[in-house]
């Protein structure tokens, strides 16, 4: 028995309606699962963000009466503030050092762990340890090690006859910035290593066997197989490195205090808002820090996405 044209059309419509109903139920389920995240993110991230952006256009200063609308005044003033300029330069150096060292070091540790056998879990536990230590504790520990008089670093260098007296690391701007970056990298590198290790473990072994049969060198295999297949996770790792380096506070505060040599943008925000009580000026600076962090991170994300999509 064959169906008429009308019957055939009715069957197709019924099927489509059934599918639509199923889709709706799935959408409802998905929506209800996502809703708590949307609510929490909205309340704790987006609402404060919008409020901060809005209030940065007003003069909010507890020491002065009223909160008049001042438009972009706070933002234009930021560009002429010598302390903000110094903090921006410091932060950009710290971001550059942190992202480069964390990425290279993280990938190297991930490759090392991937190549290990039973010892991997022990080495992984050892590498992860600094990540588990709170930033303040981590910074205090390093500040003791770099203490000019009784620190272990100077003791070793004196023992090796590389320095003679008490070398004061914080008195040299370059050394102080590198020191702060190293302390930050020491803590954050394990996260990059773990992300990259997970990515490496997802690459099929056959691809490496094929490359070997084709006579590819280790470097060639890394460039042609490993790197393209880990581009997505690498972008995520570099994004988190960038964001945490832009938000660097504890290490710079404990190792350098409010010194202009090492003052990061977040320290400048803190000092502007909570020491000098120029709240909306601090808000404007924090918005600019967020935008800069987003701009750099988005380059990594888009680049990583491009690599993944081209596969």
């Amino acid at each position: 028995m064959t169906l008429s044209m009308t019957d055939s059309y009715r069957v197709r419509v019924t099927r489509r309606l059934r599918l639509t109903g199923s889709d709706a139920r799935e959408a409802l389920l998905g929506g209800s699962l996502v809703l708590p995240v949307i609510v929490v993110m909205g309340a704790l991230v987006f609402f404060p963000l919008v409020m901060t952006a809005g209030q940065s256009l007003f003069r909010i200063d507890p020491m002065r009466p009223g909160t008049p609308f001042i438009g972009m005044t706070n933002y234009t003033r930021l560009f002429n503030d010598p302390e903000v300029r110094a903090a921006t330069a410091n932060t950009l150096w710290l971001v550059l050092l942190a992202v480069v060292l964390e990425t290279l070091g993280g990938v190297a540790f991930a490759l090392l762990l991937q190549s290990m056998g039973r010892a991997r879990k022990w080495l992984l536990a050892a590498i992860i340890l600094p990540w588990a230590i709170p930033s303040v504790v981590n910074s205090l520990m390093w500040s003791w090690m770099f203490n000019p008089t009784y620190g272990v670093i100077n003791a070793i260098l004196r023992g090796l006859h590389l320095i003679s007296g008490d070398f004061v690391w914080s008195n040299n701007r370059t050394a102080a910035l590198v020191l702060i970056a190293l302390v930050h990298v020491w803590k954050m590198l394990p996260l990059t290593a773990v992300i990259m290790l997970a990515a490496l473990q997802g690459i099929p072994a056959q691809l490496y066997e094929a490359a070997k049969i084709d006579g590819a060198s280790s470097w060639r295999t890394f460039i042609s197989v490993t790197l393209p297949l880990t581009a997505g996770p690498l972008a995520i790792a570099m994004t988190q490195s960038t964001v945490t380096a832009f938000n660097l506070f504890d290490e710079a505060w404990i190792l350098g205090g409010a010194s202009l040599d090492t003052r990061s943008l977040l320290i400048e925000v803190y000092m502007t808002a909570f020491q000098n009580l120029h709240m909306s000026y601090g808000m404007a600076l924090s918005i600019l820090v967020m935008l800069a962090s987003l701009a750099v991170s988005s380059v990594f994300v888009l680049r990583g996405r491009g690599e993944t999509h081209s596969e």
Partner: protein
Amino acid sequence: MLGRGISRKLAAALATTALTTTLFCAAAAQAEEITVLLPSFGADATTRQLLEGFTKESGIEVNLQTMSWDDIRPKIVTSMVAGTAPADAIEFDWSWIGQFGAAKWFTPLDDKFDAALIKDMPTASVFTYEGKLYGVPYANDFRVNSVNMALLKKAGITEAPKTPDDILKDAKILKDKKVVDYPVSIPLAAAEGTSTAWYFLTRMYGGELFDKDWKPLFTAKDSAGYKALEWIAQGLHDGLINPAMTGLTDMQVTASFAGGNAAIDLAGHPYDLATYNDPQKSKVVGQVTYSLAAADPAKPMTIALPEAMGIPVNSKHKDAAVKFIKWWSEHQPEIYTAVSVLPTRTSALEGLAKDGKLQGGAEIAKYSAYTQAIFSQGTPAWYSEFSGAVSATINQVAKGQITVDAAVKQIADRAQSAQQQ
């Protein structure tokens, strides 16, 4: 019959218990509690014991919270911006009066304390903003030089230096005779203690920081502020001050001095002797004395840096907090004996000195008479920005990154831009 008797007794006992419990709970509900936030004196248990005396006298429970001095200000700011009281009676440093007075975050206290009590506290005027008193001084603080006479005597020096030049001369002798590597200690980190050390040195040279119109007075080469900064640069250049001081705050310098690492601590605190004479905290027990130096030894001067207690406007226990501050003010001698908080009442200081209970008593009593407010017009609302610029700039000078000329210009520019805001 017996069962009925037991039941009656049980019922009576239960009723009595219930009544007692109700009365107890009612009494407990009536007992007022205040929160007091102060810097950690290092003897919280002793302080708590002292406060039990207040509770017995007044019936008011005290929830004492202590934090490091540096952390209290951010707590006050965040709480007040959020519209809540960080505590009912709270630490109020001299340097906050300009900002907090302008922000109207604290309760005026003029009509809540006897005029005679306030008159007995010479530093109370420091806590006045636009004619209103916002804090009652509870901890006396000014700057003195701590001198390790045992080290000086090793170098053949018999008396404490009397002028800023004498300090550098004596330090050179101490260094040449290898008594100590770096004879002078002074905080040079980018922190408040560095700024106050410079103000103190400026006062040593007999000068002021600003004129009556808040115009900087420290930019000319013959000004006291310029000479003070030059003195620091000279001390570092000659190897008399440890270059590692760029990472030390005033409290860290005190700890270092207690370890016998320097002979003269410039801009020490008048309560440091309690630390230096404590064998558990110090290697220089019995060796240190206080001293004041001045470019004109006939006119010694120092700066007043008192700490007060204030009551936030949104405190819910203002009357109880006033009672607590009154109690503290009246018991300053006992509090000093227990936890070394130097009294702010002249009569209390005199009484302790007379009884021989004041560490460095004669000097403290003498030097406290030389104290003057850093700003004769009162601490301005822009003080925090000015102080931040001073300490960050001195830190740069100490690291050899900028000259004294560039430094005074930088501080003056920052002071003027802070005033314009």
